[in-house]
């Protein structure tokens, strides 16, 4: 399969009054079309900066990244659903289309179809505070999918949820991603999530981060919850845990 994204020697520094903080030190990575790659690292290691750079809302300091398409559409999802409380579910779902001035009849129909497929149709005219956390997360994903992104960047999208909903929602979201066949880069600090959901896991070192190891994951099931029960899962989990070298006091 073709590479959809090539990152070469990427670097990122932040400049503050207290001095320069190097967040990313030399990252090179290729992402194949249709692949789900999870980047794990300890908190504050610079993994969110990496996604921010790819999403074009932060500047890189050095190096380059190239998408196979000249002008790729990028879908970006953040730590919480970031739904606008004063807009209805439908209005929220088409927000990205509106901003990007792509709110054509055809695209709006597509959003309506997505809302219907993922059991949100009856909530179209409701407001976010009337929905459960998992439902809101699905709306946020549909808002991103509405733009028909070439690549999805998910920045710890489930971290605001409690453990139970987190398992259910991540399964939900990944079923959608697999069904729509979208290349995805997920950033997470949750090893279990990374191993059970993705095709490859990239382990980052502590700040300034660089790639420590890359694991190919071949777990038997499409259901991440079933995957968590396999022997391979536990082995990978332990291995990555060691790689991360988290100091627990």
């Amino acid at each position, binding site marked *: 399969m073709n590479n959809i994204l090539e990152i070469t020697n990427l670097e990122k520094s932040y400049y503050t009054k207290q001095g320069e903080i190097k967040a990313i030190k030399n990252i090179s990575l290729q992402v194949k079309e249709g692949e789900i790659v999870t980047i794990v690292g300890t908190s504050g290691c610079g993994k969110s900066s990496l996604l921010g750079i790819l999403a074009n809302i932060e500047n890189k300091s050095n190096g380059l990244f190239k998408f196979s398409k000249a002008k790729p559409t990028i879908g970006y999802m953040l730590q919480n659903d*970031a739904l*606008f409380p004063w807009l209805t579910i439908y209005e929220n779902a088409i927000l990205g289309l509106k901003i990007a001035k792509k709110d054509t009849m055809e695209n709006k129909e597509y959003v309506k179809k997505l809302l219907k497929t993922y059991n949100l149709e009856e909530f179209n005219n409701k407001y976010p505070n009337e929905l459960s956390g998992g439902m809101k997360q699905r709306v946020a994903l549909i808002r991103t999918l509405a733009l028909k992104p070439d690549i999805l960047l998910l920045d710890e999208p489930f971290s605001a949820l409690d453990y139970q909903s987190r398992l259910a929602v991540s399964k939900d979201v990944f079923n959608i991603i697999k069904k729509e066949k979208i290349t995805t880069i997920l950033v997470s600090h949750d090893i279990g999530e990374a191993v059970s959901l993705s095709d490859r896991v990239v382990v980052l070192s502590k700040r300034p981060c660089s790639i420590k190891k890359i694991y190919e994951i071949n777990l038997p099931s499409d259901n991440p919850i079933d995957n968590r029960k396999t022997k391979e899962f536990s082995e990978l989990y332990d291995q990555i845990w060691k790689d991360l070298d988290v100091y627990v006091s």
Partner: protein
Amino acid sequence: MSMSANQKKFLLKEKKNRRFVIFMQLLIIITFLILWEVLANKKILNPFIFSSPTRICLTIKNLFIEGSLISHITTTLYEIFLAFFIGISLGFLIAILLYEIKTLAKIVDPFLTMLNSLPKVALGPIIIIWVGANTKAIIVMALLINLIVSIVNIYNGFLGTDEIKIKLLKSFGASKIQILRYLVIPGSKRTIISSLKLNISMTLIGVIMGEFLVSKKGIGYLIIYGTQVFNLNIVMAGIVILIILSFIIYEGVSLLEKKLLQGKN
């Protein structure tokens, strides 16, 4: 749905309490008025200095018959609404400017603080010289008082915008104007609306102060005129009308606030 006995008890208690509060409020007002009237009539309070409720009513009635009352009220109302409207609109626009140009906000910050802490009456004489002894001076006076409060309030509301939502819009490729239109302004609706209430109180202060300084008409003028001719009945009448007017305007704005905030979230 049927109500439990305890729920009924609770509601009854609430109702009783509300009635008691209203009863006490009325009692205080009526006692105050009667006491005032009686003491003035018995000359224990000098009615020439303290006036009395009946004298005040009579004065208001005479002013009304003679035809000047309505024009005093409409003059003051006109000034209040003009200053209020300009204050809110200008405050809103300047807040947007400060929000968009962060360096500008940093530059003007100490000046805003200085202006905010200055007692604006001190500028009264200069204003009269600069813009003339007319309605304009009153509006400028009121703006000096209400504008800075509006700017600071609305600006702080804008600053409270959720960073994650800004990032999200940026990832959609949103322009600065789109971020304002879709996120910052609708997200600050609550702050903007609650600044209306603060603004109207400030406007009232500004307008009356302005009228004290320059006007030939209006409630503020009525009060000052009464003092100058030493007719305390007119002064008191002016104050009573002002109390009623402010109360109605303030309640109106509160009602507007409730209406605007109803429904969503």
